[in-house]
């Protein structure tokens, strides 16, 4: 019991710290690596929540594919360090105040409205990894077959769109 608690607290600290690192790091490559760390932490959260398939998908899709794409573009553009620009004087304080309001709202809803289900509703349900993944696959390919197929169309459209967008028109400079 205590082991899970300690693991959760450490993971939470790492997740929040890596998100903060993403916010404050000047170098974009470091920011991307902080985000990879954050994604990995969230993947362990998924494992704790008994969602092994989602955890692995998180590692492969987010920490793998998406972040490689990010790093590739960062290095392609040579944009790892932007010169510090002029800030609107009120922008940063306003942003921090607005975010504080958002967080306070979330906390309020969490502790006022969610008292009923403050604990995991079905704590006795044993999490069997194989069974979860089997049930997930069955649901995905029976009940959610149409959304799944539409997803493939979406990915195809995104792929074609990216190719069309970045294709150089003949005669265009650069």
């Amino acid at each position, binding site marked *: 019991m205590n082991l899970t608690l300690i693991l959760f607290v450490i993971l939470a600290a790492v997740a929040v710290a890596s998100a903060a690192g993403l916010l404050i790091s000047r170098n*974009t490559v470091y920011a991307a690596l902080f985000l990879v760390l954050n994604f990995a932490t969230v993947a362990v*959260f998924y494992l*704790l929540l008994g969602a092994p398939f989602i955890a692995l998908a998180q590692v492969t*899709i987010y920490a793998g594919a998406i972040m490689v794409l990010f790093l590739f573009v960062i290095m392609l553009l040579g944009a790892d360090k*932007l010169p510090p620009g002029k800030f609107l004087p009120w922008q940063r304080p306003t*942003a921090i105040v607005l975010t504080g309001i958002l967080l306070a709202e979330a906390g309020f809803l969490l502790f006022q409205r969610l008292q009923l289900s403050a604990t*995991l509703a079905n704590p006795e349900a044993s999490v069997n990894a194989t069974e979860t993944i089997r049930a997930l696959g069955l649901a995905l390919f029976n009940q959610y077959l149409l959304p799944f197929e539409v997803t493939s169309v*979406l990915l195809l459209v*995104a792929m074609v769109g990216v190719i069309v*967008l970045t294709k150089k028109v003949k005669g265009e400079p650069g």
Partner: protein
Amino acid sequence: MAQTIPLSWYLAISAALFAMGALGVLIRRNPLIIFMSVELMLNAANLAFVAFARSFDVLTGQIFVFFVMTVSAAEVAVGLALIIIIFRNKHSIDVDLLNSLKG
């Protein structure tokens, strides 16, 4: 194992990550970092989905997370292509330079 952690703790982490993502979108100038902050927010929402799915013992939350991941992969691909085009046209990706629509 995971049963000892209350649902509200996961939701609190999710809320904190979402707020930090929103802060990143608001205060950073680099569109790449803004994009990463958007990913952070999507991730926070995914965490809440999985926590609720576990709490109510249904799989629908996990399936929705799967779809969110797919859509965000598509979104990142298109967004990064747009950033590359902006870089080609402006030779910089500072979002402050994108003020052509300003009267």
